[in-house]
């Protein structure tokens, strides 16, 4: 009798298990179909660094103090700049980040007095060659500026959110970016 109740209980629990799975069967899909759709990265996502612009002038805030260069434990940042005539501070002309050695420790962001660099939210970083990961952040900044131009000077107080939007716009089309990466990889090969 004991064995029969055991069999009955076991069979019942199997049926309950099957009811659970059939319930899942009719619920909507929860996975994101990656190349077709992407997740929005949260604001605190720590991607590679990027330059922050001065909303008034539309140029990078960076004045080439090179603190980040010295703070970097893996020596992957090299900054260069010139002193333009009639200006107190130097302006950045080249900001190279060698992302192959960067460990995303964030020491550069922490040490920057001006808040001129921040973490980007770019995570679609596939490439075929090593050289693709030596990032020129000035170029990247200019590209972002060009994209954000139509709305860049509308309001100054909300520039934080505007920049966030601009950053998002830059990473909005991963498929195109992937294709671009593949193309540049081909030409390098």
């Amino acid at each position, binding site marked *: 009798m004991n064995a029969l109740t055991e069999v009955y209980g076991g069979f019942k629990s199997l049926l309950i298990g*099957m009811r659970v799975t059939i319930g*899942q069967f009719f619920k909507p899909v*929860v996975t994101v179909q990656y190349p077709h759709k992407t997740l929005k990265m949260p604001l605190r996502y720590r991607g590679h660094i990027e330059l922050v612009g001065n909303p008034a002038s539309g140029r990078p805030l960076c004045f080439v103090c090179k603190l980040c260069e010295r703070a970097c434990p893996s020596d992957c940042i090299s900054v260069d700049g010139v002193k333009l005539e009639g200006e107190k501070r130097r302006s950045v002309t080249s900001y190279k980040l060698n992302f192959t050695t960067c460990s995303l420790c964030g020491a550069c962001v922490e040490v920057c007095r001006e808040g001129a660099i921040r973490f980007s939210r770019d995570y679609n970083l596939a490439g075929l060659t090593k050289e693709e990961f030596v990032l020129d952040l000035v170029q990247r900044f200019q590209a972002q500026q060009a994209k954000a131009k139509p709305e860049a000077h509308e309001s100054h107080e909300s520039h934080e959110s505007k920049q966030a939007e601009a950053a998002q716009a830059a990473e909005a089309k991963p498929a195109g970016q992937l294709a671009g990466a593949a193309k540049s990889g081909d030409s390098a090969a």
Partner: protein
Amino acid sequence: MSALFSKIVTLLETEPYRLVVAVVAIVGFVALNAAYLVWVERKGAGRFQRRPGPTEVGPAGLLQPVADGLKLMSKQLILPAGADLTLFRVAPLLVMAPVLMSLAVIPFGQSLAARNLNVGLLMIFALGSINVMALMLGGWASRNKYAVMSAARVVSQNVAYEIPMLLVVVTMAMVSGTMNLNEIVRQQAGAFWHWNLFRVWVNPLMPVTFLIFYICMLEETNRAPFDMAEAESELVAGAYTEYGGMGFGVFFMAEYANIVLGCSLATVLFLGGWQSPFGVLPGVVWFLLKMYFLVFSVVWIRWTFPRTQFYGLLNLSWKILIPVSLFTLVLSAAMLKILRSSL
């Protein structure tokens, strides 16, 4: 035109042509099912895990089986060193052939069976045991430790489960009084409570009998949770370890063909075969509906339960299924005796 058509039909019903038509139809049916049940399985697995399953090849991934087939066919057939080459090559065929032959006696519709044999049920079970031997030969011939281990498991597992399966089938043969599958279906005419599954006045344990049959069918087709033959997480790929390309492909197709056969048999024996419960739609449709519902439940079970442990598997058979099926056999024999003598 219609005269020509009817002439062709009568020609196709005469002997050598009928044979050819049946062979082509069965091979086509098995091939289509094997290919698209893989798709059903993958889609089903996806749905049960809240993901979409294959979507990239063709609309809703419908061309996925074609892509898989092309991939398998383009692969090199590797023969492992030291393997028994003849047995190694023959094993996949030996798994596939009995299924194709068994389908010849399955009545898909009232007059839609390749052969209306008087001993159809017996023939299916005679051929069914070849499956085990073929898996064992495949495992043995590969000269691979995993494969041999799996082959040993498969044999003990199949021996253990063939007994309750056959006891159930003997019960059904006694209840129906015939081994002709078409006749068994004909006896279940009428509404669904005439199906053997609900024939509780002959044997009050009929639903239990069906469950035993279903469990044994899962086991005989080496499906999860009884997939000791493959057991990919513990034995690499079990008996299929050394098979690549279409050799593996045939084993894989045979698994699905066996599921179709097992579900067809369950439909015929318990769910009234091509009998329609409401009198609408032709019988073939009902047969396929019932059969594919059972196939779906096989997929459903696979993605619900983990693989049983080996001793658990044997305990289930020897300690539960065999005593219970013996009991139902004796019970229905007694009931039949009483019923017959009272008439």
